[in-house]
């Protein structure tokens, strides 16, 4: 964090704002590694955008990807290909849908990379501009406030119940979508039954009961959720500090104060 000096009134007037606080989420920009965002888009087109705070684009891409992936059976084909069963892979893909996937995938990766690079520049400008943010927002249905939260607690909740971590850090849209999505995947993939059978050692049954097409969504979901929650918590903590520092500098450094000695 750069040392804070008493800044005069910003001349740029929120031209490059740091963030926007609504009652269901605090959406803001901060520096990130564009390759990392691009990677998350690789695991699941749309995740990169959600990580950036571009919810609208992210949800669109996710829906788009889901529909195509499930109908074209891309995940199934991936599993067959990686395990060397290439004939099965060829049969599994539905040719009516398969080619649509390429566009979604490449676009998501490209766009999230490009957006990250752009937003990094704006985040530097925003930090230099010191535009004020009100650290609390109460609306009819929800209350949101800046706070320092423990990233590991958020991680733990995300592992136990994906989506809960996001509720803890107060990013409700992501939390809600992740939760719904996780329940859907668990149900269609029969992953929880697999957990039961695996725990009992009945491995043949464990494998037989699952639907591989849906199972392969799980790693991407878990990985992304754990990453997003951690990054958000750490960055929210920083945002809290920056906002409070600015408040103190603006209000409690009166030139009339008599310095000691």
């Amino acid at each position, binding site marked *: *964090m*750069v*040392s*804070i000096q008493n800044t005069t009134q910003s001349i740029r007037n929120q031209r490059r704002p740091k963030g926007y606080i609504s009652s269901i989420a605090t959406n803001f920009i901060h*520096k990130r*590694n564009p390759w*990392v965002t691009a*990677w998350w888009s690789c*695991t699941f087109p749309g995740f990169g955008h959600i990580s950036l705070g571009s919810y609208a684009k992210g949800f669109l891409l996710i829906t788009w990807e889901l529909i195509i992936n499930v109908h074209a059976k891309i995940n199934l084909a*991936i*599993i067959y290909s*990686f*395990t060397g069963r290439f004939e099965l892979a060829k049969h599994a893909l539905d040719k009516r849908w398969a080619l649509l996937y390429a566009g979604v995938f490449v676009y998501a990766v490209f766009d999230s990379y490009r957006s990250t*690079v752009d937003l*990094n*520049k704006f985040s*530097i400008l925003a*930090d*230099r501009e010191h535009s004020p943010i009100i650290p609390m927002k109460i609306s009819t249905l929800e209350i949101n406030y800046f*706070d*320092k939260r423990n*990233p590991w607690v958020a991680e733990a909740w995300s592992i136990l119940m994906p989506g809960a971590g996001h509720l803890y850090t107060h990013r409700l849209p992501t939390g809600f979508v992740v939760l719904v999505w996780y329940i859907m995947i668990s149900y269609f993939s029969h*992953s929880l039954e*697999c*957990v039961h*059978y*695996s725990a009992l050692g009945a*491995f043949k049954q*464990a*494998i037989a009961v*699952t639907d*591989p097409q849906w*199972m*392969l969504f*799980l*790693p991407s979901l*878990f*990985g*992304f959720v*754990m*990453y997003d929650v*951690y990054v958000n918590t*750490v*960055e929210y903590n*920083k945002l*809290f*500090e920056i906002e*409070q*520092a600015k*408040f*103190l*500098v603006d209000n*409690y*450094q*009166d030139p*009339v*104060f*008599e310095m*000691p*000695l």
Partner: protein
Amino acid sequence: MYVLASFEYSEYLELAISELELKGIKRERILAVPLGKKTEKAKIFDTISQSDGISLIDSALILGTVFMVLGVIYGYVLKWGPIIWGLIGLIAGAVLGFIIDIIPKKKGQNNKKKVKNKTTEVVILVHCDTNQVDEVENTLMSNFALGIGRLDKRE
């Protein structure tokens, strides 16, 4: 008489200051100086060299996801099934990623002490009368000040 106190950034800091104002200490007699922990050159891309905690988790989670995917895939042909191999993959990948991140840092930054204790982030000076000092100190203490000191103003 001056009372100095150090705080972490938290709501307690604001509670302490507002309580002091309630007790009659005017705003012009309270000075707050937020401390910046380190100066940072604004780098556009590189998260990897910032030691702010996030970079440690990048590689761990990415490799964790990669290996978890592989674990789920190969779990279908191996004995233990996709779930267990998926978990093995996740943990193995995460540990690998963590190690990859930690080693260069340990080599390069041996002189950097890890401060596990709470670090001072804001310094408050309160200019008050001698009879107010105890009250001020109590207010600051009850709001989790990290340290408190007094200074007698020499005329």
